[in-house]
């Protein structure tokens, strides 16, 4: 059928496939309890062909999920071969190495059958409201502290729940109603996607697998053409942030040749016994994300889009750590990959990159008791955007993730805190032909009637975000307790009346400062 299709029919069926996936994603988002799923789109729903290759991905997914679910499906298939699967089966795992790089992301795969024939898979991943273990902190030393790990397991057998899996999960998480609710939300999305695909095939006679191969080929060619527009050569760049003693180094070498692009991270830091290690799927996802921004933002994500790209990192490095390295705060290292790749390409395609932003993402997690009741609250903060060759960076913008702030009024209604200030840090963006965006100051007072536990992701307190092509670095960030510098890397207990001040870093400037 594919060979007979004209360019309009391909477009229409492609739109239909993406729209099926988006419709399933709508179901997942709207029933989810996890605010990070709803507000930060920390999920993905995908359609895979019968070889578990990506055919279509939901439009709204965040960067960390690019191309992870096909890999997850292959891990599941290694344990449960497709011949053993039947309609109504569902499989689950949250293993960081097989999934997305940390435990809270739960992956669910279901085979799709039509008239008894296996034609593909529906797959989803979503950030669970809780996964047990200690609260997230870069200071954690082993994966086992980070929560419950589910190796690939069958979750539904021909539509019937496997009680043991449900029971164990429910018994090991804090807000079990919400976690189980989200699990059902994912299952509904997966089931709907399978049903809709079969309806589409019934209505159009589409040969789904042949069509999938066709659009993968088209995406592959589009990406290869975009790569050919970059001058061939080898380009490298090094990015550093504060670590535990030693700085964390991401060293990136890009080779562009024959319409292919390889990224290698040799020369980056060794893995550490803190939770900032990044498993290879996440290294791959964030590398592909940066390249897609630069090269081909409008090409839909599928298996073909990234065939021309390869990503590698030395075994035992911070970007390819050995089990059971802790990984919960992976973003603190993973968020350095886009600035590293952009830095490498800044000399050859300066108008298509941006300077380092005030990332990695910051977060603040506060738990405790107030008025006799427990509370827990997590919020995110961002630094300034990196400048580009054409424009100043915006202040306080999330990059490379896309996690917004929590409104002050929501924060104060849900946690015993008072926000004293949320303002821009004037002049914290790096100078240059174009200035980096400013960071922000968020200051809050603890109103709880007993001591509270706080943990953070907060970096670039010492090493600022570098400028590009002669631009100056942004200002480093700062974390203060009652006006005095405070180490955010370990979990701490602070007291009623204490005032926390979080100053996020400015973004790097671009180009030399004009005389």
């Amino acid at each position: 059928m594919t060979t007979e299709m004209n360019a309009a029919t391909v477009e229409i069926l492609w739109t239909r496939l993406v729209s099926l996936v988006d419709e399933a994603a709508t179901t997942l988002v709207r029933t989810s309890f996890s605010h990070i799923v709803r507000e930060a789109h920390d999920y993905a729903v995908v359609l895979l062909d019968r070889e578990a290759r990506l055919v279509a991905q939901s439009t709204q997914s965040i960067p960390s999920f690019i191309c992870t679910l096909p890999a997850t499906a292959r891990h599941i298939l290694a344990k449960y071969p497709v011949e053993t699967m039947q309609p109504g089966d569902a499989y689950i795992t949250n293993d960081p190495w097989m999934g997305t790089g940390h435990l809270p992301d739960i992956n669910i795969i279901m085979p799709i059958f039509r008239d008894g024939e296996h034609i593909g898979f529906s797959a989803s991943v979503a950030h669970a409201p809780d996964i047990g273990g200690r609260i997230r902190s870069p200071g954690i030393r082993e994966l086992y502290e980070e929560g419950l790990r589910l190796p690939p397991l069958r979750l539904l057998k021909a539509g019937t729940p496997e009680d043991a899996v449900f029971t164990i999960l429910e018994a090991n998480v804090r807000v079990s109603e919400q976690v189980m609710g989200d699990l059902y939300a994912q299952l509904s999305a997966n089931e709907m996607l399978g049903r809709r695909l079969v309806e589409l095939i019934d209505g159009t006679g589409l040969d789904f697998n042949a069509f999938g191969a066709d659009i993968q080929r088209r995406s592959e060619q589009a990406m290869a053409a975009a790569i050919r527009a970059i001058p061939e050569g080898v380009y490298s760049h090094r990015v550093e942030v504060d670590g535990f003693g030693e700085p964390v180094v991401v060293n990136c070498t890009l080779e562009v040749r024959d319409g292919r692009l390889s990224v290698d991270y040799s020369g980056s830091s060794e893995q550490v016994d803190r939770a900032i290690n990044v498993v290879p799927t996440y290294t791959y996802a964030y590398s592909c994300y940066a390249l897609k921004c630069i090269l081909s933002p409008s090409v839909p994500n599928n298996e073909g889009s990234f065939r021309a790209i390869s990503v590698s990192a030395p075994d035992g490095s911070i970007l390819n750590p050995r089990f059971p390295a802790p990984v919960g705060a992976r973003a603190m290292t993973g968020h350095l990959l886009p600035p590293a790749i952009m830095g490498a390409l800044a000399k050859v395609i300066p108008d298509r990159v941006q300077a380092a932003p005030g990332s990695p993402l910051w977060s603040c997690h506060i738990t405790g008791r107030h008025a006799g009741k427990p509370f827990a609250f997590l919020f995110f903060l961002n630094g300034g955007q990196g400048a580009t060759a054409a424009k100043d960076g915006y202040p306080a913008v999330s990059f490379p993730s896309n996690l917004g702030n929590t409104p002050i009024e929501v924060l104060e209604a849900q946690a015993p805190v008072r926000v004293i200030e949320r303002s821009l840090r004037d002049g914290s963006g790096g100078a240059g032909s174009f200035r980096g965006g400013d960071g922000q100051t968020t200051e809050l007072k603890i109103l709880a009637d007993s001591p509270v536990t706080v943990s953070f992701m907060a970096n670039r307190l010492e090493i600022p975000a570098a400028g590009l092509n002669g631009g100056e670095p942004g200002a480093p960030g700062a974390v203060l307790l009652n006006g005095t510098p405070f180490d955010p890397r370990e979990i701490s207990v602070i007291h009623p009346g204490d005032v926390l001040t979080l100053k996020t870093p400015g973004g790097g400037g671009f180009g030399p400062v004009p005389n």
Partner: protein
Amino acid sequence: MTDVRIAVDIGGTFTDGVAVHVETNQIWVAKSLTTPDDPGEAVSTVVASLVGEMRAEVGDGAVSEVVHGTTLVTNALIERKGAPTAAIFTKGMRDILEIRRELRYDLYDLHFTLPDPLVARNMRFELDERMAADGTQIRPVDPAELEGLLDHIDASGAQVVAIGFLNAHANDAHERAVADFITARRPGLSVSSSAAVAPELREYERCTTVTANAYVKPLVYSYLNALERRLDDQAITAPLRIMLSSGGFTTSKLAAETPIQLLESGPAGGVLSALNAALTHDFQNILAFDMGGTTAKACVVTDGEPGIARSFEAGRVHRFKRGSGLPLLITSIDLIEIGAGGGSLAAMSALGTLSVGPASAGSVPGPACYGRGGIQATVTDADFWLGYLDGSSFLGGTMPLDRTAAETAIGSLADALGMSVDEAAFGIHDVVNENMASATRIHIAEKGYDPRDFTLVATGGAGPVHAVAIARKLGMPRVLCAPAAGAGSCLGFLAAPARIDKALVQTDELKAVPWTQIRAALDAMGEEAREELVSAGACAADLIFEVDVEMQYVGQGNSVSVKIPLDDVRAAYSGALFALFEEHYARLYGRSVPHGRPQVVAWRMIGREPIRHQRFLREADATHHGRAATRRLYDCERGAFVEAGVYRRDTLGAGTVLQGPLVIEEAESTFVVPFEATVRVLDDLSILAELF
């Protein structure tokens, strides 16, 4: 006494007017080019023309009401033509307009642009006052500090002041005190406070809303005053009613206080017009589909009620990108943009497929067939090539279309894609329909409905051209096309009820709702609304008071609205409310949550008249039933051109039954049935195509 009501809608190109005779339902229509520098001028022209036309039948001085909608507010926000505005925030918070929510609206665009705040930093001031989240006063307003602030505001050159304090949705005493203080000291300065405009949680969105309201307030105030004077000059003493985005209208006095609510009045009128036509035939579930030269919009109406959204984005940097505009917390009819209209450009994508839009040829140069210099093929070119539009009668014959230009434009795309011109033309038509159908499908899914239960109601110049094909893609069984009368929104204005929306934003678990307190607060709002509605011309005895109860399970962020009569807000109804919520939730999401704890996050009171469903009659020469001609038309099911009937709408009498494929032409649009289907002309001269 003879009564006539008049509606006037200022649109981008034309200012339209319709007068309706209240007893006979006869309508008169008038039109004038919009006068952007002084929009009231076109309104006067249209009203004068209507009065002149009607005089023979109704005499003088019989106008009982003038309902008006305008794009003034939308344009002022897009073009940034509002008044110099200062703003006062809680100490430490003046940057919240610029910190926004820290999100990027496009994940892959490194070079995205955000809309600037409406109030620049040097015009943003702070006051050391504070309310807690529960409304408790933490720090009172210091009059001496405020006095000093006034000097700065004077020096800033502001004509209007917005006030946006933290937690004002919970307690607006400080905002009111500051507003009163400023009004007393500086009577010439206009003031707007956040809780009075939108008493909603979330400071960035609420403060953006109040700054937008303040920004357009002086403009709207002087416009409405001038308009009232103009109507006076024409001896029209009837009250002026202003259409709101919510699909209701209010007095010009209230409209001048919260002009931001006028934002989407025109599109809201379009939906009400479609709904009014559908209700005539008892179609309760409709998709109102409007497609023009530069935009296509859709609204889902269920059980006779249009979907309502509680926020709207104005002045988007990228029209189709959610998050690229200013978020405004206003009640509006929930219309989504599903496409860029007839001007959408077709191209070969980077993937070698035929893609259409979102880039548009706009009105200049416009489609290639307009012969104004456009060289890239558009949807209109394809529609023309396929025989769906007629080159000689387009826009009532005022704009002949150039067949060679269309062929050249489509041909060059066809060559690039290895297709014939016919294939490419149908490809363009089919791809744009699929894009619009997909956007609609997801929108309907988000609301938990099945498209097969809907009737599509088509409006706009290009709406009737594409409606039947889109309905078939969505599985909708029928398409209704009401007599357009060339003034769609105006008919909607005339069918609109008086309406007031008020909100009480307070979170309580359902089992712990303080019913007496909530009911007392809602009753007080109801009384206030009753007075306002009566002053807007509503009959007190007919008024309906309902409450949209926004509910969710504890821990969720999205809420579900359950509508109940105001009288049911009482403790004894708690169990029934729980059941309603679970039923509604299960319909939306497939199942309720076992052991979930429901909570109420807001009580939204709606006071309104019943929908003024009305039949409109227009004199027409509806005596012939024959076809005017035939022409080559592309039958999209046979995949080939066929010789199809061409009918003139104004000659089709009630009761006519026709078989597609066919086209029915009128001055404003063409109704296209591109395959076999039964088409009936109904008793009000609406056209109904039955597809399944």
